[in-house]
């Protein structure tokens, strides 16, 4: 079930990136798209009855920490991408005075 929801999020994000003409909305779509994959990693790392992976003696079942670490990296990458995208959009806006892609292609 979770996977299905996750896939829906994934496709939704992809759809927004492809379909939307507004660059900012595209960035939002990109973020949703990326987040769906982040969530996917979190889902797969969940262990039933597990606790956060901080070692102490009485808890032996804990969630897989590796995907969390990976996704932390991926999130950072995502933030970098987003901020770069926003910066570029500002430049585009300065040059064309528009951020609607269908208008930009005409110019």
């Amino acid at each position: 079930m979770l996977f299905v929801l996750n896939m829906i999020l994934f496709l939704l994000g992809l759809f927004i990136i492809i379909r939307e003409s507004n660059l900012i909305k595209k960035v939002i779509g990109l973020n949703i798209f990326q987040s769906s994959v982040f969530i996917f990693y979190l889902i797969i790392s969940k262990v039933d009855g597990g606790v956060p992976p901080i070692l102490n003696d009485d808890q032996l079942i804990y969630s897989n920490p590796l995907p969390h670490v990976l996704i932390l990296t991926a999130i950072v990458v995502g933030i970098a991408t987003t901020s770069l995208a926003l910066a570029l959009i500002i430049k585009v806006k300065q040059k064309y005075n528009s951020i609607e892609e269908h208008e930009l292609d005409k110019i």
Partner: protein
Amino acid sequence: MRHHTIPRIVTKLLIPVILLFGLYVQFHGDFSAGGGFQAGVIFAAGFILYNIIFGLDIGKSILSVNTSKSLMALGVILYLMVGFLGILLGGNFLEYNYLSNTPINGQLLGIFLVELGVGLTVSNVMVLVFYSFNDISEEK
């Protein structure tokens, strides 16, 4: 914001706490949840809050754009230098075991320095992002 008393007072009270919390997260990263990343962001948040309340001029006089850039670079360099130190002391890149007399101490020292580098970089990147967005709004 300079003339709003309540935010000023609250900020004055909060900033030391925020910075202290940042430092806590920074130095406790190797024992509990936390680390340079989070600490850097928290630290930067404190500084940004200061800027919002007291104005950029004062903020920039404390930490100018160029200093911030240099500190950001220094963070990365610190990180890499620790890595190179591992090579120089006969291990692999980023191998901390050789940094101190015992491997455990070495690991502690290594992770501390590396996280320090990360924290330095992240906090300054955050500040720089804040600065540059401010520049854009000023241009308009």
